[in-house]
C-alpha cells in the first residue's frame, strides 16, 4: 500500500463506552483514497464504533475513553479544536436503516446544503444521478420522502451525503434492509463512486464484503485481526480466525 495515497490514518485507537464496553482496542489502520475499504466481522466487533469516530458522530454517545490518533489527510480528527461541522461535511455517513428526514425528496437533499449555506441547484440532480435515483424521482421531487420505497430511501440517503460533495463516504450496513435488486443498485453506485471518493463500507454479509472490497479489514471483538487487499484476504487469509469467519465457520 502506497503511503502517500492514504486518505485516513488511524493509529492506536482505543474507545471505551461508559457501560464498560471496550469497543475498540488499539486499532491501527490506513484507509486509502479512491478505493472501497471494507470493515467486516461478527456483530459487536466495533465496526460501527470505528465509523462513528471517523466523523466524530461518537460525540453524541457516552464514550468514556478515546485515545490514539486519527488523521484525515492532515486534519487531526480527534482534536477538540477540530471543527466537527466542517469535518462532517467532508466525511459523510449512510446508516443501516434508511432514515429520510420528514420533508420532501428535494428538501432531503438540500437540507445539508442550506445549512452549509450552499446555493447550487445543479447539485440536486447530480447527487441523485450519482446515487442512481434521478430517473425514478425527477418527476416527484416535492413528494414526501417517506413515500419512496425502502431501497429508494436508502439511495436518497446516499444522495443526501453526496450533495455535500464529501471526500469520504462511510456506509454502515447500508443494504441490510434491502432486497437483492436494490442492494445490487447500491453496490453498483459505490463502484462508480470510488473513482472520486474514499469509501468505507461495513457490509452486511461476507459475500458483499468479498464482492466489493478493494481492501478488507477483519474486526473481531474490538481488535483488528487482519487487514489486506480484498483479493488476498478472501482467497488467502493469513489468520486462522479470519479464515474461519470467511469460510462461514463462526459468526
Amino acid at each position, binding site marked *: 500500500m502506497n503511503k502517500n495515497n492514504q486518505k485516513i490514518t488511524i493509529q492506536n485507537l482505543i474507545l471505551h463506552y461508559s457501560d464498560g464496553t471496550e469497543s475498540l482496542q488499539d486499532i491501527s489502520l490506513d484507509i486509502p483514497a479512491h478505493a472501497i475499504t471494507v470493515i467486516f466481522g461478527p456483530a459487536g466487533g466495533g465496526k*460501527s464504533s470505528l465509523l*462513528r469516530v471517523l466523523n466524530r458522530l461518537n460525540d453524541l*454517545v457516552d464514550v468514556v475513553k478515546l485515545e490514539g490518533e486519527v488523521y484525515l489527510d492532515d486534519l487531526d480528527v480527534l482534536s477538540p479544536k477540530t471543527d466537527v*461541522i466542517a469535518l462532517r461535511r467532508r466525511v459523510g455517513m449512510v446508516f*443501516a*436503516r434508511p432514515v429520510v428526514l420528514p420533508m420532501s425528496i428535494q428538501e432531503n437533499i438540500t437540507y445539508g446544503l442550506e445549512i452549509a449555506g450552499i446555493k447550487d441547484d445543479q447539485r440536486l440532480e447530480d447527487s441523485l444521478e450519482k446515487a442512481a435515483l434521478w430517473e425514478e424521482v425527477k418527476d416527484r421531487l416535492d413528494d414526501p420522502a417517506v413515500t419512496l420505497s425502502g431501497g429508494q430511501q436508502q439511495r436518497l440517503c446516499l444522495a443526501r451525503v453526496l450533495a455535500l460533495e464529501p471526500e469520504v463516504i462511510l456506509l*454502515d450496513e447500508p443494504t441490510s434492509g434491502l432486497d437483492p435488486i436494490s442492494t445490487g443498485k447500491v453496490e453498483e453506485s459505490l463502484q462508480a463512486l470510488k473513482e472520486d471518493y474514499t469509501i468505507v463500507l461495513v457490509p452486511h454479509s461476507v459475500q458483499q464484503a468479498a464482492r466489493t472490497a478493494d481492501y478488507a479489514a477483519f474486526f473481531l471483538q474490538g481488535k483488528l485481526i487482519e487487514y489486506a487487499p480484498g483479493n488476498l484476504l478472501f482467497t488467502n487469509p493469513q489468520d486462522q480466525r479470519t479464515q474461519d469467519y470467511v469460510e462461514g465457520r463462526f459468526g
Partner: protein
Amino acid sequence: MDRDLNLGEMIITRLINIAGYSAIIFVGMIFYFLLREGLPTLNEVNFGNLVSNRWYPIEAYFGILPLLGGSLVITIGATLIAVPFGIGTAVYLAEIAPRWVREILKPLVEVLAGLPSVVLGFLGMLVLAPFLRKYLQLPTGLTAFTGSLLLGGMAIPTVVSVAEDAIDAVPKSYRDASLAIGATKWQTIWRVTLPAAKSGVTTAIMLGVGRAIGETMTVMMVSGNAPVLPGGIRALFKPARTMTATIAAEMGEVATGSVHYHVLFFIGMVLFLISLLINITASFVVFRQRQRQERILS
C-alpha cells in the same frame, strides 16, 4: 461565518439552559415570598391562639384548626369520590373501551379538567346545593358534602390521566402471560395489570388529593364558609371552610402588613408545604428513570 454560528449557538444554548433551570427558581421564589410574608405570624400571634379552634380575625382569633379540619373533611370526601371513579374510568379507557370510545371519552375528560372552577362553583350554588338541601332535608345545601362532590369531580381528570398512563405502561407481555394461562381479561386486570401499575396508580391518587386540597373557588362558593372545627361524620353535611377559601375570601379585605395579612400568608405557607410533601412523594414514585436508550443508528 463560523464565528457567528458558534456565537449564536452559544447564546441560544445559554437561554435554553436558563429556561430549564427556571422551574427550580420559581419554586424557590414562591417559597421565599410565602415565608417572608407568612413567618412574621409566629411573632405576632401566640402559638396557643394559632392552634386553637376559633377563627375570628376581627377579634384577633387566628385558630387555623377549623380551617385545616375543613380542608381535611372536604378532601377526604372528594377523594372517596375521585378515586373509585377516576381509577374505574382509567381502567375502562386503558383496558376495555374500544378505540373509538376512547377517542371520544378522553377529550371529554380533558374538558372536565378545563372547566373553570368558578363555573362549577356557580352551578353548584344554583343547582346542586338546592337539590341536595331538598333531597337530604338539610337546613342548607352549602355544605362540606357539596364541596366534596364537586371537588371529587374536579379531581377525576387528574386521577384518570395519570392512572391511565401508568396502566398503559404495563408491558403487554404481562397481560399475555396471564391470558395464556387461562385467566379472563377481568382477572388479568385485577391480578396482573393493576398491581403492576401500582406505583403509577398511587401517584394518580396522590395528585388527585393534591388537586382537591388546593381547589379554591368552587369550595368557597358551595361549602358554606363556616369556620367550625368538624367533629364526626355529621360535619360532612354542615357548612365548612377550607384554608384555600379563607385566603381567597379574606385577603382582599386585609391591610397589607397587618397581622391578619401575615396569618393568611402563613396559611398559604402551610398549603404550599402540604402540596410540596404530596408532590415530592409522588414524584419519587414516578421516577423510574425513563431513559432514552435508543442507540445511534447501527
